[in-house]
C-alpha cells in the first residue's frame, strides 16, 4: 500500500490553502477534493464530525483536522523540507507567533469589515500594532523561518492575501512605509512558484473579497 493523501479543501479558505502550500513544499502527492460548503460531502462529515469544516487531511484513511494540527502532523510524518526548526525554543517561538496570527491578527482583520467610523480607526490601529509584532519578527531574516520558508511563513501567507486584496479594495492596512520588511518578505515569497499556486487566482479575488465580507463559517483554522 502506498501513501494515500487526500485533502478536503475549499478554494477561498486561507486555512485550506495553508495545507496545500505545506503539501507542495514537501512535494507530497495528494488528491484534492473541493468542498461545496453549502453541500458538504459525506466524507467530510465523517472525517470531521466535530466541526464539519475544511481543511481535513486524510492520510491512509486517517483524518486530521485543524490546519495547524495538520501542518505539525505533516512535519512529523514527512521529514523532508522541515517546517519547524530543530531547536525546541525556536519551535516554541514559531508556534507562539503562529498562534498570535491566528488568535489575534485574524479576528481583528475579520472585525475590520464589520466596523465603520471611529471604531474602524481603532481597529486599524490595533491591526497596525499586531503587524508591528510581525515586522519586528522579520528583522535580520529572509523569511520568518530564517534562511528558508518554514512553519510561520506558511501561517503568515495571510499577509500576502491582505496585500493583494488591499490593492483591490483600496483598504491598505499593510502600508509599505510602516512595514517595509513585511513587504520585502511578500515580494520574496511571491517569487516562489508553490506560493503562487496556492494564492487565490486573480480572476477570483473580487469574489473572495465579497465572500470573506460575509464571513464564511465553514472554514476552520
Amino acid at each position, binding site marked *: 500500500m502506498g501513501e494515500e493523501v487526500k485533502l478536503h479543501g475549499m478554494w477561498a479558505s486561507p486555512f485550506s490553502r495553508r495545507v496545500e502550500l505545506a503539501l507542495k513544499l514537501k512535494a507530497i502527492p495528494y488528491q484534492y477534493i473541493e468542498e461545496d460548503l453549502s453541500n458538504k460531502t459525506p466524507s467530510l462529515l465523517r472525517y470531521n464530525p466535530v466541526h464539519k469544516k475544511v481543511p481535513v487531511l486524510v492520510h491512509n484513511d486517517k483524518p486530521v483536522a*485543524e490546519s495547524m494540527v495538520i501542518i505539525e502532523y505533516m512535519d512529523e510524518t514527512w521529514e523532508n523540507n522541515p517546517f519547524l526548526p530543530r531547536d525546541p525554543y525556536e519551535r*516554541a517561538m514559531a508556534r507562539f507567533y503562529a498562534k498570535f496570527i491566528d488568535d489575534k491578527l485574524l479576528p481583528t482583520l475579520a472585525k475590520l469589515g464589520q466596523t465603520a467610523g471611529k471604531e474602524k480607526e481603532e481597529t486599524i490601529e490595533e491591526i497596525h500594532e499586531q503587524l508591528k509584532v510581525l515586522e519586528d519578527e522579520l528583522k535580520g531574516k529572509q523569511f520568518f523561518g530564517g534562511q528558508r520558508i518554514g512553519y510561520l511563513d506558511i501561517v503568515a501567507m495571510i499577509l500576502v492575501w491582505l496585500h493583494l486584496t488591499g490593492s483591490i479594495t483600496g483598504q491598505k492596512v499593510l502600508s509599505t512605509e510602516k512595514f517595509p520588511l513585511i513587504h520585502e518578505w511578500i515580494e520574496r515569497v511571491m517569487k516562489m512558484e508553490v506560493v503562487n499556486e496556492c494564492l487565490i487566482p486573480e480572476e477570483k479575488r473580487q469574489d473572495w473579497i465579497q465572500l470573506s465580507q460575509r464571513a464564511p463559517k465553514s472554514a476552520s483554522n
Partner: protein
Amino acid sequence: MGEEVKVFGFWASPYSHRVELALSLKGVPYEYIEEDILKNKSDLLLKYNLIHKKVPVFLHKGKPIVESIVILEYIEETWKANPILPQNLHDKAIDRFWIKFIDDKCLPAIRKATFSPENERETAVEEACECLRTLESALNGKRFFGGDAIGMVDIAANFLTIWLRTIQEATGLEVLSVEKFPDLFKWTDDFISCSVVKESLPPTDKLLSFVKASLSQ
C-alpha cells in the same frame, strides 16, 4: 548552575496550573514566582511577556516562553520522562485537535454561560453542554484522555475540574454534572485524586472565595 526553570504564575489561574502540573508530572524542578496580576504586575513579567503581559511565563535558561499550550509542547520536547503526548503521530494529532477544541470552544462557551445575562443564559448553557458532550466522546471508555495516565489533553482540560466546580457552586450554574455527563464527571474525580495533581491544585476554599469576590465585581 543547573537547568534553571522558572514559572511566573498566579495561584488561581488554571493556565498557570497547567504548566506547573506538566513540570511536576515530569519531575522537573522549578522556581515559582507568584505574580499579583490584578494589582501589580512585576517588571520581570512585563519584560518577559511584552506582547500579552499575562501569566504564565515560563523561563528556561533565561529564555521566556508564553502561552500555556506552547509551553507544554516545549516541556514535552525538552524533558522526555513521563511523556504527555502519544508516540503515534496520528494519535498525537488527535490529541492536539482536542486541546484546541478545549481552548477554542469549550472554555469560551463556559465563560459565556457564566457571564451571560438572564435572558441568554439557557442558550449559553446549552452551547456549553454541547461542547462538553463532544469532549466526553473523546474519553471513549478511557480513564483519562491520555489513556491510563494523564496526558496533555487532561492537563488542558484542568479548568473543568475544580475551577468549573467552584464557578458552579458560586453561581448556581449547572453545566458539568454527574447526571448529565457521568463519564466526564468521573474523569474530573479521577484527575483531582491523582497525587501529583492533588498537590498542585490551589486550595478549593480559597479559590471559592476568590471566584465569589471576582464575580461580584
